[in-house]
């Protein structure tokens, strides 16, 4: 399921008047809540949990906290507002690791600070290390290791905090 589909889903749920919709499709679980009691506008919250077979404990542990935070006040309008998309500044080859024998810079669920390295994009023997523009948590890694990327292609979704 891509972002566009999720956005359409949010619009659909908002129009439908339902207060909460939960959806599970394969490894994707989405919860959309609308119209909080005391918030003026409409509150939509999206949670996308890639439940991978080797799901790490740190991925699932913080979720209840996030849930309750939204339940109280955090009025988040759309997914686009909530998540920051890190895009590729150049055409090149995307690497998630500083070198093949090293662990990846970040994984889904990693907490990062502004300025932390996210990936390397190699082009013409220049190994460009891409730093994060924001602090937050990695929600999604959108490109596979060692694959070609285009200019402006989304690479990571980050939940800023």
């Amino acid at each position, binding site marked *: 399921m891509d972002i566009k589909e999720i956005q359409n889903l949010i619009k659909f749920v908002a129009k439908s008047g339902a207060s909460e919709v939960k959806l599970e499709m394969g490894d994707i679980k989405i919860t959309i809540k609308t119209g909080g009691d005391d918030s003026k506008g409409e509150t939509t919250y999206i949670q996308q949990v890639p439940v991978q077979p080797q799901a790490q404990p740190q991925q699932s542990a913080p979720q209840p906290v996030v849930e309750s935070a939204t339940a109280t006040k955090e009025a988040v309008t759309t997914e686009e507002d909530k998540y920051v998309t890190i895009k590729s500044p*150049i055409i090149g080859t995307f690497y998630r690791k500083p*070198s093949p024998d090293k662990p990846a810079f970040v994984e889904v669920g990693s907490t990062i600070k502004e*300025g932390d390295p996210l990936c390397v994009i190699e082009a*013409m023997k*220049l190994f*460009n290390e891409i730093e994060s523009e924001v602090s937050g948590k990695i929600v999604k890694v959108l490109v596979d290791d060692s694959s070609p990327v285009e200019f402006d292609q989304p690479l990571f979704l980050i939940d800023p905090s």
Partner: protein
Amino acid sequence: MNINKISAITSTNTYLKELLRNDQSLNELAVVAEKQTQGRGQMGTEWHSQEGKSLTMSALKRLEGFHVENRFCLSMLVSIAIKNVLSFYNLPDIKIKWPNDILSANKKVCGLLLEPVLKKDQIKAIIIGVGLNLNETEMPDLPQAASIKMLTGKHIDIDTFALEIVYEINEQFFKLNSQPYSVIKREYLNCLYRKGVLSVFKDPAGNEFNGLITGVSNSGKLQVATELGEKEFDLKEIKLLNGL
């Protein structure tokens, strides 16, 4: 720029990168390793050095307001800097092999590992790794490589040489503020290996074809005049079969 000397180190580029990560306001700095244990070449490859005979060093240069679209300029400037130092030592027939190997008399003398650090579309710093063959008397496992000693017969003082490299890199980086990029490119093209000479290339499918290197694009692609017209190639799209 300060030059630090370190007796044993895994990789000077990695060392500088970690220093920078821990201190975002780190001043420009160069590091020279007496012994490098895990030298890095391109992604995954290794750079082997002989203790006391090879120069393995890295320099951190900071940039301001430098847009990533001009990134290949950095590659050209560092290549020119190395070429200038080698000229001073009277090496024969110095050429830059696209994108940034430095050759003398058709042998590889220097390899570069360039690691720009980006935030959004700005390059804020670059770590320049230099591996240079100085005083090796033989390089039996690397038939395509040679050292300055092998090419000139002269023994080179590593510290003096490192100082000259740092000086030249600084000189070249001043050009970013004082010269149009076209001038930098002209200087790079003037010593580009096999430019304007009929050469044989191989594409990823294994097909061989003739062509003349005519230049490089602003993003650093190699421009080649082929029988099918002028074409641009990425590093993975073309292999030069002549010479090295």
